[in-house]
């Protein structure tokens, strides 16, 4: 036959495709761009009529003790969620890697349940659980829930990394006389470094951005998204754009690093 891989496409089709892609990305990023842009506008209006570039709202927000406390809690939640979910996810993925094919199918289906499970139901379930066992609501109650949300992503990242992992290297290390801990520290851990970093960035992004679970379990120990929500309900306040922008830049940066280190695997 012709031997052509694909027939040449008309230039019009490519142009139309670019227009479609550009419109979709514009739609996806427009709200984020607007919040960022308005946060630097010194006047208190919400339309994009700029008078000057100013850090007025950032200054206002940075000196607001409520916001600063919420920022600290959000950071704490993100870091603890990342460490705990990475530890649990890595042990789980290492355990699953040596199972028979049939059990692996089961193990790989389980994480998909919390992944698709509605946050509202998990949130009221957690609230009911803490109520039933008499534990109060706090940032730690929220963190315990965030670990559940991050765990499926972390597990899938590690499972993908272990697909390519050469377990024969561990056997070689053992034959050379290394103990289990030495093997883990000097072979397994360095080889999985990109996956571990990627999974931790991802969990941090999930935790920092999370709202519904925190809403039901944090009580008075509000995180940054909760402060944002509370103030949105109080009415439009331009300082909100600064809080939103900070939150946005942090989660986007974390997601960016996560995608770069491990999640993005394209041929």
């Amino acid at each position, binding site marked *: 036959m012709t031997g052509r891989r694909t027939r040449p496409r008309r230039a019009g089709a490519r142009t139309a495709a670019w227009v479609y892609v550009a419109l979709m990305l514009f739609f*996806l990023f427009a*709200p*984020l761009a607007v919040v960022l842009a308005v946060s630097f506008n010194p006047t208190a209006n919400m339309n994009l009529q700029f008078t000057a570039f100013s850090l007025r709202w950032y200054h206002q927000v940075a000196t607001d003790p409520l916001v600063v406390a919420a920022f600290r809690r959000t950071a704490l939640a993100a870091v603890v969620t990342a460490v705990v979910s990475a530890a649990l996810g890595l042990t789980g993925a290492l355990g699953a890697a040596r199972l028979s094919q049939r059990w692996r199918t089961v193990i790989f289906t389980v994480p998909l349940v919390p992944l698709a499970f509605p946050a509202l139901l998990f949130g009221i379930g957690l609230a009911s659980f803490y109520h039933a066992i008499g534990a109060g609501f706090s940032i730690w109650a929220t963190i315990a829930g965030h670990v559940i949300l991050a765990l499926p992503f972390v597990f899938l990242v590690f499972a993908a990394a272990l697909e390519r992992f050469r377990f024969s290297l561990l056997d070689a290390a053992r034959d050379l006389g290394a103990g289990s801990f030495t093997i883990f520290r000097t072979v397994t851990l360095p080889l999985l470094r990109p996956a571990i970093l990627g999974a931790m960035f991802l969990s941090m992004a999930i935790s920092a951005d999370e709202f519904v679970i925190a809403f039901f379990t944090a009580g008075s120990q509000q995180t940054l998204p909760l402060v944002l929500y509370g103030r949105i309900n109080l009415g439009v306040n331009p300082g909100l754009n600064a809080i939103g922008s900070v939150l946005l830049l942090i989660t986007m940066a974390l997601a*960016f690093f996560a995608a770069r280190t491990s999640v993005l695997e394209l041929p």
Partner: protein
Amino acid sequence: MLLAPPTIYFVLLFVVPLIVLVAYSFYTYSNFNFSAKLTLSNYMQALSNPALRAFYFRTLKIALGVSVGVVIVSYLFSHILMYVLPGARRILYFLVLVSLFGGYLVRIYAWRTMLGADGILNGLLVRLRLISHPAGFLLNSNFAIIVALLNFLIPLGVLPIFSAMQNISPKLLEAATDLGASRVRIARTIVLPLTSRGIRAAFAFCFIATMAEWVTPQLLGGPLDQFVGNQILYQFGQTLDWPLGAAIALTLIASVVVMLGIISWLLRLVTR
């Protein structure tokens, strides 16, 4: 055994809380408190209350529409990335992936500032002389809710559809091309059936997320534009009737599972 720690954690903080929720849905509520006297009346109320039913069908209508919309937009986008603009595939997919994890609440809030009476969209429309006065229907309306839902669900739709398309062997498409199949025919008889799973996953993600949504209607909808989720929240936050809230939530999830089964079966027929 290495699987034990994550399994124990998962059971303790995911499975057990849901069991507690089921248990609470049978508790008896009176005077802003509830006790362990088991009853079915919460479920009776959840199923028979006409106001709840209205909110339920409202939510269902929007969830179906939004999910179909997300699937179509994401499918076209994935198709373009794979077959029309393969050179830009990496960077475009990367952008969508990054937007997936950024700012759930911030996005909703952004639409408030964009669609409000003194917001950017109205300002633009007035300046372009398309309308003389700022339009009030943009915010606190179904329109605002749907726009915001599409905005944060599209990346979630792209993910499964794109990865399904990526798994199709290029050799299959080359063979079809060499045998003289047209591009449309390849898209219909090879790519569509092989991406059926991805389409169904994308639909399920969006449908579940929208059926149980409450933040978007609360912040962007009017008083009559609320979802079932807001009613659940109302029971948990205002009346403190947790048993009724739990019963509404559990009937909601049960109906979502049944409907997804039916929709998934229909989608399989359509994409065959």
